[in-house]
């Protein structure tokens, strides 16, 4: 099973070359690449705090609830952010939070982020950060948030991009509840990350929808070119992600994509396994 942990709901006026129109078109693209499940984020809602963007994602994913996993977003520095998170998760069925500090205009270390971290832990959902772009989205800023909230799985959505993947590697080795989706990492940096930090907290995420239908093929090939042992490749392409959607509150129904792999431990155990490597 392949899980794409980083896709954006298309299209909007700013990113017109997005994925196919509507869920059918998007699923057809996923099918073309053998992708079974996608975590879906808003695009327009990252620059517009109207909470209806969360509803749009929910409705998009409702077309194929076994394959499309809705994530919500909030603007942490605006009043009502925690309330909107609860609404989107408890009423809207969001399975995680997406934050984009430079588009949304806040620091991951803003004091108001702590209320959000507390809420995330209570809800039992992961948070995906855009990362790799200073001044508000460096991997170490995101990792510092993760250290303040060790009960929350925190995902670097890009592994530092081209310029800060060295930061992302250091952060991954230091912080147990940090995960990496390496879309945007150079292949050479990704290789070093796997060599030094292992692959058990690595996810497949394409950033599909943010501009180019070729993203999924490109990012899949980056993972496959690592030539990991088959079990490790399966974990990166899907198993690791299912540890994170498994980590969720009781009121939600069966995990997306069926029961999680038998060998899956908790996300904390995965983190501690990696720490032993370094």
């Amino acid at each position, binding site marked *: 099973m392949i899980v794409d942990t980083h896709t954006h709901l298309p299209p909007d006026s700013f990113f017109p070359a997005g994925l196919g129109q509507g869920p059918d078109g998007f699923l057809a693209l996923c099918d073309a690449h053998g992708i079974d499940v996608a975590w879906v984020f808003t695009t327009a809602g990252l620059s517009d705090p109207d909470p209806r963007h969360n509803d749009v994602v929910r409705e998009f994913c409702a077309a194929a609830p076994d394959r499309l996993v809705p994530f919500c977003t909030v603007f942490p520095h605006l009043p009502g952010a925690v309330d909107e998170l609860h609404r989107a998760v408890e009423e809207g069925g969001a399975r995680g939070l997406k934050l984009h500090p430079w588009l949304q205009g806040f620091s991951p270390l803003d004091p108001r982020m702590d209320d959000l971290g507390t809420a995330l832990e209570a809800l039992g959902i992961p948070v995906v950060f855009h990362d790799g772009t200073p001044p508000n989205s460096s991997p170490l800023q995101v990792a510092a948030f993760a250290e303040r909230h060790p009960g929350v799985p925190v995902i670097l959505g890009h592994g530092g991009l081209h310029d800060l993947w060295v930061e992302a590697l250091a952060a991954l080795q230091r912080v147990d509840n940090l995960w990496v989706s390496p879309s945007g990492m150079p292949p050479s940096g990704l290789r070093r990350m796997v060599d030094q930090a292992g692959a058990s907290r690595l996810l497949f995420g394409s950033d599909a929808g943010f501009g*180019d*239908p070729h993203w999924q093929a490109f990012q899949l090939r980056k993972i496959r070119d690592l030539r990991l042992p088959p079990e490790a490749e399966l974990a990166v392409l899907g198993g690791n992600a299912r540890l994170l959607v498994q980590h969720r509150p009781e009121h939600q129904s069966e995990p997306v994509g069926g029961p999680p792999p038998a060998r899956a431990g908790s996300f904390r155990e995965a983190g501690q396994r990696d720490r032993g490597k370094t």
Partner: protein
Amino acid sequence: MTEIIDGHRHLGRGVDMDDDLGHLLSDMDEHGVAGTVLIPTDREIAVDNRAGNDAVLAAAAAHPARLWPMATVNPWFGDRAVAELVRAVGNGAVGLKLHPALQGFVLCHPMVHPLIATCQTLGVPVYVHTGTPPYAQPLQLVELARTFPEVTFVMGHAGSTDLKADAQVAATMAPNLVVETSWSLPARLTQLVEAYGADRVMFGSDAPLSDLGLELANHRAAELAAPAAAAVMGGTARRLFGTRVGAQGGVEVAGS
């Protein structure tokens, strides 16, 4: 069949890059790449310019039909940087590579002007890494290109990752800019060709940081029309660098 020239690839073992000549040549063979512009490694770009330049000059001298050497010097070395540039071009280097983020200067700072003036005198283009703020931004390159309108500048990586909009607008701001495509996905490549025109767009792999096969796959997926593809994949690089390589019989190395 479209000739493929790789307009930007690093040779040698640096800190975050590692490639040797044997692998580089076999990688070119495997992917049907006729010629490659060779750049020194990260460490050599930052501080050990002469060693890096000698390495790419030697590799190109050994394979003159397939490899172009491009020199790098750090402008912080002042007059010594100019002297090393003159030496390297005299020995066959086909251009100057600058990396403002690795070398630590604001791209349009006047400290770099003596080097650009030297390139103008020598008649070689200037390739600049872009996309890493605050030091290596497309609009800083536009400023430099407007200051030296007779020099051809190559905008490395087209402002990837976060300055793509700047790179797009830059096309209309300085006609002496050419854009290099590494790290660009298919839709982006199409946009670059539309903005710059195919004869101002040059394929580059940025291997071994990126991967030659991955970058070529992106270009194939863009499905550019044949004339545009011929320019992007090889024609632009030939126009910038090509008289010294391939059919023309290779690099003349002074003193060798």
